[in-house]
């Protein structure tokens, strides 16, 4: 189902409760009554078209926003991506850590195995942190600089110099598969870990891992399908503009 402006916001969540996390990132709180997506977005100062693209891309992984999304500013996109980073580090990762901690505490028969999981996830957390930090420190500022140069009338040499040292192509090539380790962890728990007595915790942990993995996938998809093509296009035009001068 494709979500549109006039659908009730409540129905968006009824359709797919994973969208809760997206709403969260836009700072939209529950209790919408029968108000539509459009009304709720206006009330929260959210660009409704941008919201629709993001939420649709989230619900349907084959949804290709391309053309439409190109009209949004890069800032809007990086702001959203930044919020997803915060969501991982401030919410999701601590939740998972807490669950693993609980498993360590409640498990007597194979504590050492759970401690292994804990260490594995700890390393992963560091990797995720490095990954998102790199985006925040290098990639996002670069894309914003490109957008600025793209919008300005006069061509500025400094952006050309910047483009010589970095390009969105580099980002795309080095954009590593950050979900890979999560998949491993999931497989280890499902297939190989001797099951702890407390299977409730174990199931909960798995559920959270699935959840995080899906969210990270969605995040990468927005970077690769939206941000990268948009910047690549801008780079081309800037180079051309400069060459003509």
């Amino acid at each position, binding site marked *: 189902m494709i979500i549109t402006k006039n659908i009730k916001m409540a129905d968006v969540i009824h359709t797919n409760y994973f969208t809760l996390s997206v709403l969260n990132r836009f700072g939209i709180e529950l209790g919408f009554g029968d108000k539509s997506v459009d009304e709720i977005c206006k009330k929260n100062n959210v660009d409704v078209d941008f919201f629709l693209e993001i939420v649709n891309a989230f619900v349907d992984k084959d949804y290709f926003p391309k053309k439409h999304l190109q009209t949004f500013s890069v800032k809007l996109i990086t702001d959203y991506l930044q919020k997803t980073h915060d969501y991982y580090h401030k919410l999701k990762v601590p939740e998972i850590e807490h669950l693993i901690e609980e498993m360590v505490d409640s498990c007597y028969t194979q504590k050492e195995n759970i401690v292994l999981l804990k260490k594995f996830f700890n390393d992963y957390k560091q990797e995720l942190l490095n990954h998102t930090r790199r985006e925040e420190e290098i990639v996002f500022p670069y894309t914003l600089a490109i957008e600025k140069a793209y919008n300005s009338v006069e061509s500025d040499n400094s952006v050309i110099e910047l483009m010589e040292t970095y390009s969105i192509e580099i980002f795309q090539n080095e954009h590593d598969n950050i979900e890979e380790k999560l998949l491993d962890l999931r*497989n280890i728990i499902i297939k190989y870990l001797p099951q702890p007595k407390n299977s409730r915790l174990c199931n909960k942990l798995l559920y959270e891992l699935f959840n995080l993995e899906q969210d990270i996938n969605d995040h990468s998809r927005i970077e*690769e399908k939206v941000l990268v093509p948009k910047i690549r296009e801008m780079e081309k035009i800037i180079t051309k503009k400069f060459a003509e001068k």
Partner: protein
Amino acid sequence: MYKATFIIIEKSYLIRKGLISIIEKIPNTQVIQQFDNEDDLKTPANFESDFIIINPNLLNANTLNIIKKIAKNTQVISLSEKSIVLTKELEWTTQIYLDDTQNSILKKLNTLIGNRETKNVKSEVPEEISKREIDILKNIALGYSNKEIADKLFISTHTVVTHRKNITRKLGIKTVPGLTIYAILNKIIDINNTGKSKS
């Protein structure tokens, strides 16, 4: 678990969707990417797949080159009307026609997947990892590089890489830390000895 992966390159959304829904009826298959135009092909994020299904009308000098390069490991399938003449520059494994019935498409694909599976997996006992692979796994878990493992076991680096691929496929674990945990859980290495040792 062996999973047959597909990339679809076709302009029409309807046709892509239709084809995907047929492919997904076959167990353990996945369409990993789809393209609706030849331009996007230039910078694919991930181009490793078992099969590429392409509408030959979308082939141009550029795309032809890209596909030729990857066609060593990937089988190319055409998707077109019956009357079309296919370029001889590519090795086509089979052709899917727009007026094929679902059964005939399923049959064509199943045959291809079957062939590929026996070629890849050599119909061994599924998912059981061999003694040699355990040796390799142990060394990976201990932190040795491919080159070091090759030297230690007197085999080529290439062989080590092949073993690693098989281990990953059988266990469903890709990363070194993941493999290390598996090795510890299965007592292939000792939890107190997870670093490189001189012995």
